[in-house]
């Protein structure tokens, strides 16, 4: 009896926690950290975490945009191709003698343009964005392979913009980890603390209702398409800055990793629910698994298997804690 009472009061105290958007990702983070620190003594060291943060950053920056768009009710599968197009644009411009900083800005602009095209096609013709961006993903990949003949493009020489994008800070920690955390923080604030964030949630919750209540739902979606592609483009340039080479096949599979990170972080596939901090933490889990498996001496083939387990586990936790009335 006494014990039951205790459990009940504990549940009451925990209730606000389980209601949080990010509850599932907390559990997943905890589970992953415990597991890998048991498997490897080196896992809980500063050096390892510098590496984890750095590895998480590329998929993390993409996941921030993907989650933002997902919360407004749309998908972007083309981010993986935009990632490569952006890096390739920058690399080709630099090798043909264009100033590297200018090349970077042009690459971002091209990415934003692709996002605008995704948004325009999806909204103008009322096509599911899954289809539009799947088509865009395939089209861009074909374009990349055709224009490069399948060969990678290298850049030689040092340019300050490359150091700004992904310079080494300390050990394995690179500057783009800072960009990732900054971007995640900024978009988390936009989503939770500004009117635009409110409209984004409303648009994804039910676009027609949002419209009836006075929100320009299509405008919100369009802006978020541009945002998602621009962040993917930024990630592509960061990858180029890190490796100084870009393959026409770069980024394949990143779109699903970004969506997995968003869902682990609490985003609903139907829109209207989700969190940027959660998606960023989801991306961190992806990085932890990658680094943790190497440290544990496990074959890296287990990587996607692990993410799959975490993804499904997180989804079940969200379903259980959010209750029946919240569609998920």
């Amino acid at each position, binding site marked *: 009896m006494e014990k039951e009472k205790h459990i009940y009061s504990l549940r009451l105290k925990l209730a606000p926690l389980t209601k949080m958007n990010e509850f599932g990702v907390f559990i997943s983070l905890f589970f992953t950290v415990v597991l890998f620190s048991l498997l490897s003594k080196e896992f809980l060291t500063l050096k390892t975490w510098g590496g984890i943060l750095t590895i998480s950053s590329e998929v993390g920056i993409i996941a921030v945009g993907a989650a933002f768009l997902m919360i407004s009710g749309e998908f972007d599968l083309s981010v993986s191709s935009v990632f490569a197009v952006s890096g390739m644009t920058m690399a080709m411009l630099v090798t043909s003698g264009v100033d590297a900083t200018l090349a970077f800005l042009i690459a971002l602009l091209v990415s934003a343009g692709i996002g605008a095209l995704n948004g325009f096609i999806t909204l103008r013709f009322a096509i599911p964005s899954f289809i539009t961006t799947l088509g865009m993903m395939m089209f861009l990949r074909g374009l990349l392979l055709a224009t490069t003949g399948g060969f990678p493009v290298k850049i030689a020489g040092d340019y300050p913009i490359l150091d700004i994008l992904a310079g080494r800070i300390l050990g394995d920690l690179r500057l783009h980890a800072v960009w990732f955390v900054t971007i995640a923080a900024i978009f988390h604030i936009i989503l939770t*603390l500004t009117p635009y964030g*409110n*409209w984004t949630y409303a648009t994804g919750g*039910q676009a027609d209702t949002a419209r009836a*209540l*006075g929100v320009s739902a299509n405008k919100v979606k369009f802006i978020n398409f541009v945002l998602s592609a621009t962040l993917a483009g930024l990630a592509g340039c960061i990858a180029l800055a890190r490796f100084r080479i870009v393959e026409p096949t770069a980024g394949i599979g990143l779109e699903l990793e970004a969506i997995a990170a968003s869902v682990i972080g609490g985003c609903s596939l139907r829109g209207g629910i989700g969190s940027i901090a959660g998606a960023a933490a989801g991306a961190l889990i992806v990085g932890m698994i990658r680094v943790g498996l190497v440290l544990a001496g496990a074959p890296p083939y287990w990587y996607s298997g692990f993410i799959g387990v975490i993804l499904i586990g997180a989804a079940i936790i969200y379903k259980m804690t959010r209750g029946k009335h*919240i569609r998920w």
Partner: protein
Amino acid sequence: MVAEKEPLMKLVKIYKRFGPVVALNNVDFEVYPGECVGLVGDNGAGKSTLAKIMIGYYQPDRGEIYFEGRKVRFKSPKDARQLGIEMVYQDLALLDTMNIWRNFFLGKELVKSVGPFKILDKNTMKKLSADFLREIGIRVRSVDETVGVLSGGERQSIAIARTVYFGAKLLILDEPTTALSFKEAEQVLKYINDLKKKGLGIVVISHNIYHVYEVADRFTILDKGVKVADYLYKKDVEPQDIIDIIVKKKFS
């Protein structure tokens, strides 16, 4: 007694067609402040089209619209909303995935300055929405509650309250009680009556006379885009009389 006052909104000879279909054929319509008009008709009678013209969603092909005595032209719902004309839809009342205060201030968020940035003034919005709902007698546990957990009646009431808070003078309600239980419908009807006393003009649209008979003061009946009866005051007609008019017209 209402006839002495000026109509809140007056539509004159409204004509609207969609391709070959004449949705509204020279329809006149008035609603006075403090009055609730039941706009009744079968499916396809033109009720929704008329309502959407009143809120600026559609523009009439011909005809004139007067609001508070002045001639107006609405290019979009935004124009109508600025004058205080609001519509609450049956199934598009509020967003289930968001909490009450976020719904309440959606599109009209209050912000405060933090340095050069403007961020949501959450505390003020929570307080204002909670105070207003309490003041007009809508009880909710907390404005932080997700709308998805509320009953249909609570949702309708909050959606209506929201428009009133932002200065609605004319309220158009689309089937406000159709999806509600008897008890919930009672609550919403009582609430609509309170608003009438405050001087709002209210138009209630329904294809079911029994759903509007309780709350409306008089009835306007549309059939296939034509007004077949108007100024039927509740004291003079029974629901069955109105059904008879609709049915007779249909088979005549």
